C-alpha cells in the first residue's frame, strides 16, 4: 500500500522554481531518506506534502486520498517534526497536552508512553527553555508521535544531536518502522544517516530528484567524467541533459554521468569555444559524489 504518492510536483517562490516535477512514492512500513544539500528543496517538499504550502502543479496523495480535498481525513494520521517549535513558557508536558487537545485525542497515558519512549518523562514538568537542543529534538519527536501516526515526516531530525543521540534516534525510527509498521520520510544532509537505516533514498538537488532507489545502488561505485573549464558553464546549453539527470553542473565544473553522451557534450563545448582545462575520470558512488558537491 502506498502511503504517499507524489506526481510531478512543482513549487515556485515567485519566479524561482524550488521543486521541479518531483515524483516520489513511500510504501507502508518503509523508511525513506530525503537527502540533499541546504536549499535543495527538502523542507519545501515536506511543507507541500503536509499542506502548509500549495504547489503550483502536481498531485499529492496520502493514504490514497488527495491531500487538499481530504485534508482533515488524511492529516490526522501524519506525525510531523519540522524545526522544533515549542511554547517556552509551558512545560514539556503542557506543550504535548495542548497539541493532543488540538488533535481531539487527549490521553495522558499516551503522553506518558511517548515521553518514556523518547526518554523525557522524568523531566516532563520542566520548562522547555531549560532543555538542551537534543532534548528539544526528542520532544519534537514526541510531538510527532503522539497521534499514533501511520506516516511520520521528520525534517532534519538529526541536526544538533550528538552521535549517541543520532544512534538512539535511528534505533527508534527502525523500531517504529519494523515493529509498528510506521512509514517514515526523513530529510537529512548527513549521508551516513540515510545509508544505514533507509529502505530507499531520494536524492534532491536544486528541486530536482537526482536519484530514487535503494541506498546500495546509490553508493555503488561508478565512473563519472569531470570536465573543468576556466569559464562558468551555461545551464541552458545542457538543459536537456540536466533534466534527464545525465549531467550535473556547478559553475565551471561539469559532471557527466553517462559515457554515451560524453562526445556530444564535448562537441557542444567545442562549438561554443569553451576551453577545457581538464577531463578527469572519477570512481564514486552517486551519494558520495553528491556529498562532495554538496559541500
Amino acid at each position, binding site marked *: 500500500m502506498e502511503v504517499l504518492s507524489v506526481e510531478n510536483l512543482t513549487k515556485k517562490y515567485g519566479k524561482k522554481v524550488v521543486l521541479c516535477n518531483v515524483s516520489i512514492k513511500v510504501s507502508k512500513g518503509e523508511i525513506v531518506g530525503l537527502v540533499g544539500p541546504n536549499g535543495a528543496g527538502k523542507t519545501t517538499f515536506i511543507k507541500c506534502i503536509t499542506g502548509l504550502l500549495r504547489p503550483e502543479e502536481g498531485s499529492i496523495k496520502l493514504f490514497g486520498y488527495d491531500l487538499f480535498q481530504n485534508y482533515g481525513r488524511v492529516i490526522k494520521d501524519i506525525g510531523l517534526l519540522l524545526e522544533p517549535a515549542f511554547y517556552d513558557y*509551558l512545560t514539556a508536558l503542557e506543550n504535548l497536552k495542548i497539541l493532543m487537545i488540538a488533535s481531539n485525542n487527549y490521553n495522558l497515558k499516551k503522553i506518558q508512553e511517548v515521553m518514556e519512549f523518547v526518554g523525557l518523562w522524568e523531566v516532563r514538568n520542566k520548562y522547555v527553555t531549560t532543555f538542551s537542543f537534543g532534548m528539544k529534538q526528542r520532544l519534537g519527536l514526541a510531538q510527532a508521535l503522539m497521534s499514533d501516526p501511520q506516516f511520520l515526516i521528520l525534517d532534519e531530525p538529526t541536526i544538533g544531536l550528538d552521535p549517541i543521540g543520532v544512534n538512539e534516534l535511528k534505533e527508534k525510527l527502525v523500531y517504529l518502522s519494523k515493529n509498528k509498521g510506521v512509514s517514515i520520510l526523513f530529510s537529512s544532509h548527513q549521508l551516513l544517516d540515510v545509508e544505514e537505516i533507509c529502505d530507499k533514498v531520494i536524492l534532491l538537488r536544486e528541486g530536482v530528484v537526482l536519484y530514487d532507489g535503494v541506498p546500495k545502488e546509490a553508493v555503488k561505485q561508478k565512473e563519472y567524467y569531470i570536465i573543468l573549464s576556466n569559464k562558468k558553464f551555461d545551464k541552458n546549453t545542457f538543459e536537456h541533459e540536466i533534466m534527464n539527470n545525465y549531467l550535473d553542473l556547478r559553475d565551471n565544473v561539469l559532471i557527466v554521468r553517462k559515457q554515451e553522451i560524453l562526445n556530444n557534450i564535448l562537441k557542444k563545448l567545442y562549438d561554443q569555444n569553451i576551453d577545457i582545462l581538464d577531463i578527469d575520470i572519477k570512481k564514486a558512488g552517486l551519494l558520495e559524489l553528491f556529498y562532495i558537491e554538496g559541500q
Partner: protein
Amino acid sequence: MKAMERFYYIELYKLFKRKDVFWSLLISIFVPLLFGLLAKTESDILTISGEKFSAIQYAIMMFGFLKTLFFFCFIFIIFTSSTFAGELEKGNLSLLLVRSENRVKIILSKVLALLTVLMVFIFFVILSGIISYYIFLYNIKFATNEFLGKEYLRFLYMPLLSIFEIALLIMITMLLSLFFGVYKTNLLSIGLIILMKVLEKVDKIKVFIPTYLADINAWGNIYKTEHELLIKVMQNIGFLSIYIAIVLIVTLCYFSKMEIKN
C-alpha cells in the same frame, strides 16, 4: 469538544500562562489601589479637583487613566503580535495547522481568546477600582459614598466603546502579523495609533477615525440628553463594528490560503 472550543481553550490556556499577561494584569489591578491609597493619605503627588465621585465613577476614571496612557493598546498589540506573528516565526502555528482541517477556526479561536483576555482585564480594573473605593475613598471628602452615582451611564459608555476600539486594534495587529515579524508588527501598530491620534485633530476626517469614534470625552458633551448620547454611542459602535468586520474578513480570507513558509 468541537474544534473551535478546543482551539479556544488552548489559546486561553496559553495566554494566561504567559508572564507578560500575568504582570500586565497585576499592574492593571494595582493602579486603582495605588491611586486610592494616595487619595486616602492626601498625598501631594495626587491632586483631585472637581465633583465628588461614586464607586463606579472612580473605577471607570482609573480605567480611563490607563487608557490615556495607551496601556491597553500597547499590551494588546504585544499579546496579539506574539500570538500570531510570533507563532508564525517560530513555527508553532504550523503544528496547530496540521491538526485542523479548518484554518479559519484556529484564527477565530485566537481572536476570541484575546477578546476574552481583554474583558478579563477590564473586569479586574473596574473591580479593583470599586474595591479600592470602599477601602480607601469611602467617607473621604472626594467621595459621594454611592455605588452608581449621577449620570453613571455616561461613564459606563467609555469601557464599552474601548472594547470595540481595542478589538479593532487586535484585528489590525493580527492582519499585520501575517505579513511581518513581531518587531515590525508592533512598530507598525503603534505607528498606526499615533497616526490615528494625529488625524483626530483634522475636522473633516476625524469622524471616520476609530480612536475618535471611541473617545467619548471628545464628543460626549455635545449630546445633552441621555437618549441622544445613547444613539450616538450605538452609532459609533456600529462604525467600529464595520471596521472590525472588514479587517477580520480580509484576514480570514488571506490566512485560509496563506502559505506557511516559516
